[in-house]
């Protein structure tokens, strides 16, 4: 099966500094790829570059065989959705307004407003509440709901578990499972190794702007020395 996402020799960065230095990565529909790596190696930069929010310097990215557009709104309409690091909900807007805006340019699919609220019932009780007044976990749910409502083919999840209690993390795991079941490809950037091992089909490790290691989750789990060498954890 040819991959949904195919990234080749991708380079990008910020004014004056190259961060991604030739990233190669593939991702198949209906699978979840865990992207690990120490702080500052460029995981978020990769995610933001794929979304078009950090400009690409060189390299190619294709989605389902077609070149990925360059401007973020076109990338979104092509079926890529982002749950960014730090959530980046819009604090003054209510939960209901978030859902409305997310549905504006949505592709057709099974993630309707009702389906998303069914999956994330805590949001349903807070439709009129400004997002800035939600708890951290609720904000993360909202960021995920915002992405799901676009009916994406590929979801970029950047450290969704960051700072959250186990109960919320469980809910996130459940959502990822549902996405996978629907055939959505998930790129999950995650610091929590156990969480990554629990939900991902495959693991990729980044170091200093390149993907240095790629295996299925089972092999990664059974090779703690490599994990320790690449991540500095045991």
């Amino acid at each position, binding site marked *: 099966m040819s991959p949904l996402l195919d990234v080749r020799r991708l380079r990008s960065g910020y004014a004056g500094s190259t961060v991604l230095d030739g990233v190669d990565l593939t991702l198949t529909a209906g699978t979840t790829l865990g992207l690990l790596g120490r702080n500052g190696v460029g995981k978020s930069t990769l995610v933001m570059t794929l979304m078009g*929010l950090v400009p690409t310097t060189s390299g190619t990215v294709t989605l389902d065989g077609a070149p990925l557009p360059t401007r973020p709104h076109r990338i*979104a309409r092509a079926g890529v959705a982002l749950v960014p690091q*730090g959530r980046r909900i819009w604090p003054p807007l209510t939960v209901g307004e978030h859902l409305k*805006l997310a549905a504006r340019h949505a592709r057709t699919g099974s993630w309707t407003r009702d389906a998303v609220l069914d999956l994330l019932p805590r949001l349903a009780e807070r439709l009129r509440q400004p997002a800035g007044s939600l708890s951290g976990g609720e904000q993360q749910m909202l960021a995920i709901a915002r992405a799901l409502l676009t009916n994406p083919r590929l979801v970029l999840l950047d450290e969704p578990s960051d700072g959250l209690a186990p109960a919320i993390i469980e809910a996130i795991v459940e959502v990822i499972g549902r996405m996978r079941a629907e055939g959505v490809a998930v790129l999950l950037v995650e610091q929590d190794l156990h969480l990554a091992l629990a939900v991902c089909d495959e693991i990729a490790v980044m170091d200093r702007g390149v993907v240095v290691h790629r295996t299925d989750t089972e092999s990664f789990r059974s090779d703690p020395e490599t994990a320790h060498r690449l991540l500095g954890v045991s």
Partner: protein
Amino acid sequence: MGAWLDANLVGVVNGFAIGFLLFIVAVGLSLVFGMMDVLNLAHGAIFLLGAYVGAALAGGNPSWGGFLGALGLSALLGLAGGGALSAMTEPLRKRSHLDQALLTLGVTLVVAETLVMVYGDDPLAVGAPPGLDGSVPVLGAFYPTYRLVLIGIGAVLAVLVYLVVERTTLGALVRATVADRDMVAALGVDNRLIRVGVFAFGSMLAAVAGVLGGPIYGARPGLDSTVLILALVVVVIGGLGSVRGALLGALVIGQVDSLGRTLFPDVASFVLFGALALVLVVRPRGLFGGKLGVRS
């Protein structure tokens, strides 16, 4: 208090008239700055353009046709001017505010000089349309009818803009763009369209305000910078990108400007900037600003 109000009633009512006019000017400036991070110093020039359109079509003794025609034409010119400014500043979007300020200041100079070449540099008077050019008694004092009407128009416009921005989906899009425009783009919304739309809408309001303000300010060289500075003070006081803040800031500055002139005529402009300094010390992000904390 009662005696003070009696003595200064005209000043207070004037303050409201100026305040609502300032709101109409400042709301566009605030949204463009707050949403798109573009510092548009040509906003005052758009107001001036509207003022001269008013003077040309309405003049000293305007007919209703002339006055309404001036409103319509200035609205169109404002829309077009805003669209043009949006296109011009687009390449500078990621550059510093100084670059944007230089470009839009240049546009201001070109517009102002062109208007002087066409209309000369004598101030032009603009009258109120028939029926509104008299005075009405307000609690014993006589007050220009037009200014009362201006307060009404300003209040209606303020409520309309407020409702659109705070209560409609389009408004939610604008507020979301103020809060975090990248995330708006990541949902499939073309930022450029919002930017052009808000730029054009804000410029339209500024040009219309130029006509509406005609019977108070007339049309004269230098009016653009006077109005721009007042509007910038309003934006700073109210907080970037906040409609509520722009309204409150405009009403405060209207009163400070008007009462400052009657109570302390010698130091009126110091009173204005004193108020600005006070707000900045107490609330550095403006009365309703929260933008700086959003992306932490």
